[in-house]
């Protein structure tokens, strides 16, 4: 009886079968950016919704900040002027340090890349499911973004681009379970791999028994995976658990507060990973 009903509604059945085929095809075919078409289209549509909601909320927030919440502006302005003055002093000190470091680097011929090109992007959406630690940013392939481009913030490393659509991109945060980055202890130069745990902490793995690691050490990127530029801050060692001579568990507190990301920088300078991909595609 039900079959008879379906047969009488041949138009619906036709649309259902066509949709099934489109899903089947999309699941198999990768787009030019190497991402399955189904994933890219779904993400592209959903990111537009996120963009609309985000711009609406930002509009309300700007209106509130611009017209209603002017009472604290004077105090805030004074604070900011003081902060700016402090920052300028700090900048002078950093510049002096940078000049010194620059001279040393030239002397040792260690530096292979001088500048990083970056594009500022705004976070317009969070993850669709809680199992994945991702955010959506408002820059995409039109702005030159490609998969595996590093995302950083002034505080440190944020993650990498995984699915770029035309006007937005999905970013896998470093705390995601599938995320990892080559890492280096700044003090002892001990190497390892920082992996996400799906929570707000990272784990440092693949560390040699002889490595010198203590709580409070700064962890920076080693650049060994070819995605993240070398020397960017990942976080600090929070705790070190040992099992005899071997390291059992090393917890890293990320430098970036992933729960309050608003603006990030996309590193658009070609990395070894991008160059390798281009070499393969050519």
């Amino acid at each position, binding site marked *: 009886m039900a079959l008879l009903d379906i*047969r009488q509604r*041949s138009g619906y*059945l*036709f649309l259902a*079968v*066509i949709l099934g*085929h*489109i899903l*089947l*095809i999309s699941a*198999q*075919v990768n787009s*030019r950016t190497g991402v399955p*078409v189904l994933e890219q289209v779904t993400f592209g549509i959903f990111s537009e919704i996120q963009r609309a909601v985000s711009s609406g909320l930002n509009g309300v927030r700007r209106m509130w900040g611009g017209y209603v919440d002017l009472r604290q502006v004077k105090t805030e302005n004074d604070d900011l002027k003081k902060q700016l003055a402090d920052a300028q002093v700090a900048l002078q000190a950093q510049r002096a340090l940078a000049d010194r470091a620059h001279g040393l680097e030239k002397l040792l011929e260690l530096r292979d890349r001088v500048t990083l090109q970056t594009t500022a992007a705004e976070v317009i959406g969070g993850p669709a499911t809680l199992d994945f630690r991702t955010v959506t940013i408002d820059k995409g392939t039109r702005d030159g973004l490609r998969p595996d481009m590093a995302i950083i913030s002034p505080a440190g490393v944020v993650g990498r681009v995984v699915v770029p659509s035309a006007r937005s991109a999905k970013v896998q945060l470093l705390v995601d379970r599938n995320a990892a980055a080559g890492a280096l202890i700044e003090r002892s130069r001990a190497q390892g791999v920082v992996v996400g745990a799906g929570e707000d902490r990272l784990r440092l793995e693949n560390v040699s028994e002889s490595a010198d690691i203590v709580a409070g050490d700064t962890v920076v990127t080693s650049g060994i995976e070819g995605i993240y530029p070398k020397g960017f801050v990942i976080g600090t060692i929070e705790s070190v658990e040992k099992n005899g001579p071997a390291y059992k568990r090393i917890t890293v507190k990320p430098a970036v507060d992933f729960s309050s990301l608003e603006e990030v920088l996309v590193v658009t300078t070609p990395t070894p990973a991008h160059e390798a991909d281009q070499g393969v595609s050519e």
Partner: protein
Amino acid sequence: MKAAGAILAVAVALAVQTTLARFLVRGSVAVDLVLVAVVYVALTAGPVTGMLTGTFAGLVQDALSSGVIGIGGLAKTIVGFLAGIIGTQFIVAQPLPRFVVFFSTTILHAVIFMGLYVLLDVRHFGTPYAAALGQAVGNAVVGVVAFQLVELLPGAMERRRASRTRLRR
């Protein structure tokens, strides 16, 4: 019963198609017998049966080829559905209208099939116009002949049996 007949028709067409292809130069066949079977079933059994036959036939063909599974299925689904609608809305009982239906559905199938592959940047076909036209003519001829055979064969056999009976008397 109708479904069994459709599956049988597609299976036979596919078997003949794959068998014939081995004997032809470069493996190219000017007639897509599976598509002919789909259009035939659609014209005789209606849009739903035509569509489902197209889906089944296309997916089987896709699975047997090294292409993307679903593109052939999608093309044959659309063709089967449209041919079924034509079969129910218009009188397609003469060789010429049947020729036109087989010809146009083959062209439509080629446009969808190749168009999707090109759109998805999976495969490129160069300039396939001559090949598509050749296949459309081939499909149309085979389709019309198949219709004629199926319609005329029972009558011819009946007449032969009757003439034998008369001779015995």
